[in-house]
């Protein structure tokens, strides 16, 4: 999809300030915030789209400045895209993305995980859905043993309830009590 991207400069009338968890301020064009359902609802509730309303900075306690910078890049690229329509992705195993998206998401897995959480928090459906599809594509078509390898699922040994014979059981847990799973650093061809 190709979109014209005219340059616009935020002015006090058409922007808000958001503050990342590490205290950095970002000036956001109201047009960009339309892609985030969280921000759009906040702006609507506080009537920040009116010129006569004082706009306090919006704290985003769950988003770091690096994540915010990355998200703004996404919002700016999709500024003039039509509103995202969620398709039924069930049972779809092959996805294609435009080159810009592939390059944008060619990032380490830990950044991808943080970006997905940020997209979920800010409720940016296009970004959220895109990352989820990429994650699904890294699992699909693999056997349990291949998924264990690719996702680096750690196991321990426990006796089988029927035979008494040792079987493999997952024992990995991170500090939050959840399994730590790693994906291979290079994404598969999309």
């Amino acid at each position: 999809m190709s979109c014209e991207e005219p340059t616009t400069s935020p002015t006090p009338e058409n922007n808000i300030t958001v503050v990342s968890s590490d205290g950095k301020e970002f000036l956001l064009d109201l047009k960009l915030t339309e892609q985030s359902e969280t921000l759009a609802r906040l702006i609507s509730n506080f009537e920040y789209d009116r010129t006569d309303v004082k706009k306090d900075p919006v704290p985003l306690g769950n988003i770091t400045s690096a994540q915010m910078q990355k998200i703004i890049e996404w919002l700016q690229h999709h500024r003039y895209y039509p509103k995202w329509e969620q398709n039924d992705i069930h049972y779809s195993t092959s996805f294609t993305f435009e080159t810009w998206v592939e390059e944008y998401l060619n990032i380490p897995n830990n950044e991808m995980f943080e970006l997905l959480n940020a997209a979920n928090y800010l409720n940016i459906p296009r970004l959220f859905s895109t990352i989820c599809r990429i994650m699904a594509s890294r699992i699909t078509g693999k056997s349990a043993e291949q998924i264990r390898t690719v996702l680096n699922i750690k196991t321990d040994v426990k006796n089988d309830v029927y035979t008494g014979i040792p079987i493999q059981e997952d024992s990995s847990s991170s500090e939050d009590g959840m399994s730590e799973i790693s994906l291979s650093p290079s994404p598969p061809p999309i």
Partner: protein
Amino acid sequence: MDKFPILSLPAVPLRQVLGGLCPIDLFELLQCSSRTKEILKSFEKANKTFKVGVDFQRNWVEIKGVCKFYVKEEDNNMNKDKENKKRTFCDREVPISTDEAKATNTYWPAGEKLEGTMNVGQNFVKTLGVGQLDQILISAENPAAECLSWLENCNVRLENFNLVGAEPSHADKLATTIFSDDFLSKVSVNFTSLLEPSEGWRPINFSGDMPVNMFKIHLHHSQWFTGKQLMAMNCSSIILHHSALKNEDIKKYLEAWKSGAYPKFMYLSVHVNEANKLNFDSIVNGLTDDKPTVADNTTSVEFKREDGDSIEICLGNGGKHFTAFIN
């Protein structure tokens, strides 16, 4: 390696990722570890998708709508196809190959097809955490007692139970096992038995005091089946062959239906044995005053009960075949 703790995702993005997987991907992911099983089971899609069927006759285990695992014996021709892949089922690691979409061949040493089927079946009962098998089919060639013992060890209930037959020398012992209150209570949908116990065999643990709740029971050799056991059948469909039921047994069942019992009942078919013959008037006497009709050597009449349900009963084939069905 960069970490992507996918199972640590909040519920919404995790559900979105899982939504992009087809059933076979979810099936494989579920088996990765007890942790993945625990987390994925909380998602409706994973819970609903997996039903396991075990066919001892054709030696396969089917994950319904997902894939099928065939149990084959190793031979010289299969080496080219194995692709050197292996998979562990319970404690046994065996070569596998995939020869078509959604079908996996598992190769077991000669003479171990039964053990292989049991291992593959038990593996998925355990890893998928199913408490009920969708289907089990046992043929006359299978050592049915071993299959039933395996089933008991798996500690699962059954939706569909099919026993095609058994070695005549084992038939009575097997009949005692499957025609028992305990075993019948494990089956919820269809119970089909072609088992032929000896003429004098009678069930020991099937009292007829406990209601049998399932959709359909189909017995190809039911000469031992009594009126009291018929009264215990809270089923939609009851089909009996070689039956020794008497007029009064069927009449008593119909009287109970007419008085409001058996709300699920839809169909009763009784084929009596050589020594037996049913009498239409004896069965319907007192149930209806309507005059029966005769067509094609079949006598039939229809009557209702208080809730408005209407039943048509027929006796044909010279008094050898009785049917009753709800209109």
